């Protein structure tokens, strides 16, 4: 979502974007915060010549190692964000969205964040599931919808956990105990974080924890330009929450306990460190603020303020950035650094459980999931293992999905259906020949009964010979079956043919009607009538032959 403005505003994209309401609202907050942080430190100049490969090669690390620098872009503006968001059409879980009458798109709950979705793209006969950023853990959002992913031809799997070895529950416990320890020793705790998502769960854990840990007098500060909005928005998406939280709303009570933390003044939120915050600021305290990369945002001030004291602790919970790299420019640091990444997305054990449950015919995933992570190459369990083996893709690679479309839906009008004459070919299988007019509108196909043949305009003089040329578009049915010679001869005799001679050939028989100078070659799967130009005779013979054959 965070890159949406680049697509909608800079690529000439004119299509519709579909997203759930919480995704749009919270996505807006995240982008708003980002833009706000970036705009606080305007750059008077910008350099781009260094992006030249020859120059970049000579630069010191890490600039030297940066990849795809030519694709780096400036951060978008709020105006672009608003414009991008205005192109989004809101959808709800399990809503079936028809696209051009050809495919149906449906978002499903993915269980990872408020309104986060997996998507099903299906036609009447094919089904592709896109699973991204899903969680099977019970946190605040609605649980993941697994049942609807069943019977997929292809399942595209991405957005797995970035820290497959860390257990989120354990990390939360560690987070709380480290926080308590620091406070007890008189230090401050800094939590670099995004303004939405895991922070809701952290606040909820702290809510339960602070009294037992004797932290009830310690102030918690949440500093972000969108702190207030984020906390408020989290309370109004009752329908997108897990069952527990939903029932709270029914009481009616706010679903998240941070409402109570705010009411009792334990949690305070500020748009930035300037203004009210500087008056209220008390130490020791706990500060939640962004950006988790430690490169911009209010977190920078706290790093500089608290970095020199070993009493203080910074606790990393967001898995998006390597904490060592994030800290690099602040070294040497006296403050304690704790790394408890909390990533509730699917790990490889959960993936294999999910795949067993859902049983897609094929799995498609990014290349890195098909081999163990480079740092832990012996961990064969840290990769996707399924049968048939997953198809992998790389950046900018086009992958042909392994299925062939064979059928499409068509509707037969009831009048036409009434006129069909099914005939049973094999037990349980019936056939009916259909001749109908095909109408196609908005990619929907309907078969209508053929129009009644128009009365031939009699009395009119025929103008040209070519008018009489029969319309060969009236197709004759295909024939099937074979002709038993003896019965055929009997039937010929019954219809007044005499002087019939039958000769056996290698492949069948030849029936000679000597009087009429006619020859009928009968083989297993073909019949050839050779006669003089006598239309009457030919038609009579034809009808006799057809009696023995099935038409399709």
């Amino acid at each position, binding site marked *: 979502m965070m890159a949406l403005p680049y697509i909608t505003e800079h690529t000439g994209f004119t299509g519709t974007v579909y997203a759930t309401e919480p995704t749009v609202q919270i996505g807006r907050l995240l982008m708003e915060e980002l833009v706000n942080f970036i705009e606080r430190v305007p750059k008077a100049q910008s350099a781009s010549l260094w992006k030249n490969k020859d120059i970049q090669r000579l630069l010191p690390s890490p600039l030297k190692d940066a990849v795809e620098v030519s694709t780096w872009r400036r951060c978008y503006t709020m105006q672009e964000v608003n414009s991008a968001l205005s192109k989004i059409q809101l959808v709800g879980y399990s809503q079936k969205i028809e696209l051009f009458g050809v495919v149906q798109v449906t978002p499903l709950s993915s269980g990872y964040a408020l309104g986060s979705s997996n998507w099903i793209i299906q036609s009447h006969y094919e089904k592709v599931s896109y699973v991204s950023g899903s969680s099977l853990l019970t946190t605040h959002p609605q649980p993941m919808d697994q049942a609807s992913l069943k019977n997929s031809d292809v399942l595209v799997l991405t957005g797995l956990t970035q820290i497959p070895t860390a257990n989120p529950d354990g990390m939360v416990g560690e987070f709380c105990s480290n926080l308590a320890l620091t406070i007890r020793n008189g230090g401050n705790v800094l939590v670099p974080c995004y303004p939405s998502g895991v922070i809701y769960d952290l606040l909820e854990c702290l809510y339960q924890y602070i009294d037992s840990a004797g932290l009830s007098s310690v102030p918690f500060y949440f500093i972000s330009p969108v702190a207030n909005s984020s906390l408020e928005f989290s309370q109004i998406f*009752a329908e997108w929450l897990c069952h527990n939280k939903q029932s709270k709303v029914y009481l009616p009570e706010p679903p998240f306990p941070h409402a109570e933390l705010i009411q009792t003044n334990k949690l305070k939120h500020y748009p930035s460190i300037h203004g009210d915050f500087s008056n209220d600021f008390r130490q020791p305290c706990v500060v939640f603020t962004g950006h988790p990369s430690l490169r911009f945002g209010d977190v920078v001030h706290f790093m500089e303020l608290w970095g020199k004291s070993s009493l203080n602790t910074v606790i990393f919970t967001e898995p998006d950035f390597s904490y060592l790299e994030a800290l690099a420019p602040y070294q040497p640091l006296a403050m304690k650094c704790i790394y408890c990444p909390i990533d509730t997305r699917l790990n490889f054990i959960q993936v294999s459980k999910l795949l067993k449950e859902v049983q897609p015919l094929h799995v498609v995933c990014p290349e890195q999931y098909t081999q163990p992570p480079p740092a832990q190459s012996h961990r064969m369990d840290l990769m996707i293992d399924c049968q048939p083996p997953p198809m992998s893709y790389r950046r900018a690679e086009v992958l042909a999905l392994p299925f062939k479309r064979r059928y499409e839906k068509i509707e037969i009008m009831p009048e036409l259906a009434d006129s069909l004459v099914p005939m049973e070919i094999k037990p349980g299988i019936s*056939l009916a020949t259909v001749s109908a007019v095909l109408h196609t509108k908005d990619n929907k196909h309907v078969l209508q009964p053929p129009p009644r043949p128009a009365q031939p305009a009699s009395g009119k003089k025929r103008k040209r010979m070519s008018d009489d040329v029969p319309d060969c578009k009236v197709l*004759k049915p295909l024939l099937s079956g074979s002709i038993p010679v003896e019965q055929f001869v009997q039937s010929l005799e019954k219809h007044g043919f005499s002087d019939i001679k039958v000769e056996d050939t290698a492949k069948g028989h030849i029936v000679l009607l000597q009087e009429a100078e006619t020859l009928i070659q009968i083989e297993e799967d073909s*019949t050839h009538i050779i006669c003089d130009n006598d239309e009457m005779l030919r038609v009579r013979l034809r009808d006799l032959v057809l009696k023995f054959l099935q038409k399709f």
Partner: protein
Amino acid sequence: MPEIRVTPLGAGQDVGRSCILVSIAGKNVMLDCGMHMGFNDDRRFPDFSYITQNGRLTDFLDCVIISHFHLDHCGALPYFSEMVGYDGPIYMTHPTQAICPILLEDYRKIAVDKKGEANFFTSQMIKDCMKKVVAVHLHQTVQVDDELEIKAYYAGHVLGAAMFQIKVGSESVVYTGDYNMTPDRHLGAAWIDKCRPNLLITESTYATTIRDSKRCRERDFLKKVHETVERGGKVLIPVFALGRAQELCILLETFWERMNLKVPIYFSTGLTEKANHYYKLFITWTNQKIRKTFVQRNMFEFKHIKAFDRAFADNPGPMVVFATPGMLHAGQSLQIFRKWAGNEKNMVIMPGYCVQGTVGHKILSGQRKLEMEGRQVLEVKMQVEYMSFSAHADAKGIMQLVGQAEPESVLLVHGEAKKMGFLRQKIEQELRVSCYMPANGETVTLPTSPSIPVGISLGLLKREMAQGLLPEAKKPRLLHGTLIMKDSNFRLVSSEQALKELGLAEHQLRFTCRVHLQDTRKEQEMALRVYSHLKSTLKDHCVQHLPDGSVTVESILIQAAAHSEDPGAKVLLVSWTYQDEELGSFLTALLKKGLPQTP
């Protein structure tokens, strides 16, 4: 013949106890399960024994759908599910699921505790009943079973009100519940896509009314309230806890703020206060403006409006009080009304519809001497005002919705028979859609003709589409194929494919006709003449002269040969398959006439 059957058990040519049975493609759905405000006997609930004489409701009904939390749409639900007995799913939106049990409990309390009724549903029954509820999101397609699906649309009216589409295969019915086509101060307008249902079941409370603009009504309302408090009078506004109360509160709140008024506004405690909380938490269901500004200022956190205490009613000086219930038939609003009725400086404003038999209905119809319990006569000197703030669609709105959904037919419920008749005429004349208005217990049967979905092989479809796109497609093209029916799996494939799939060999039927012509020329020359003749005659066909000396017209082969007996004659062998029969027989007839003399 497939058909859709609709039977109102309540709300048929009536307002109250909404309950409509719909049978569609073998599925039975019950829409709403309401009570009637005007009755206190058996008639207050729909007659569920109609549904099935013997046998359980659960076996007969596939699901129950509740459109919104008003008691005339859900009041009979615990009675129906717990006392009559129904264990299937009950669908409603999240806000409805949240608020419904509270209103039911409130209703139960008034009936049992105040009126002392026995044999009424209990609190536990309400809880058990609510356990059977499945909450739905807006626009979510809920698969009730493999065939039956339902989908909710936003209806305005009250918080969480929804219209429902019920769909089986290609047949569908839309039930509007109560809806509002104009956004108000706190809710948005109803909206539905062009879903072209076979039947649209719509409410018709205001079938004959076309309301003036909302702004005028609001201004009028504010003016009356303002004037009354200016001259020291008290204003009583009887409301139902949820809905109008919030709209009017927002209206007064903004007015008070703008005019900097200090006169107190009160809100009867309990339910209404709680109600505001629901509005805060379900703010996504309110209108755009409120949703946009809620972070800065939640419209449902009122500054000027305070909780009411019973004792305040005797306070001197002006005040405005919102009190429940809305029809002045019981409770706090009636108490306050009795206290204030004697003073002509005071005013009561009725903002909604009042059912016959209630005090609200009596004073609105001009009665000024009311007989109360204990033979007391209450003389009403206070001013009585009626202002329609009901969030129902008016005639214009109903027509608009019918236009939006484009149904094949319309069925009216939830309205008075006379007014319905008028609207029916209007719908039939202006929109040319057939329209029904059954009374309770009367069944409307609509034949439907669902088309049959089958799978068509892509090869066949593409072949046909490619040809169908030719410019000469004026004449409808015929598509030929074979329908393979195996169990319930229907597939339409080309005849060739059908033969192949069933392991049947094609039997080729060929004809060869000898055409005798008197001609002494050589065979090759003969063939060339045939070619040029046919080429000039058959302009629309592909005529070719092959290197081996034969001529083809499409797939028909013509060869010239010498006559075995007569050297002056030649034989043309014309050969074709059964599939090209017409063209073949036409060609032989044509050639029999001889070739034109070369000029």
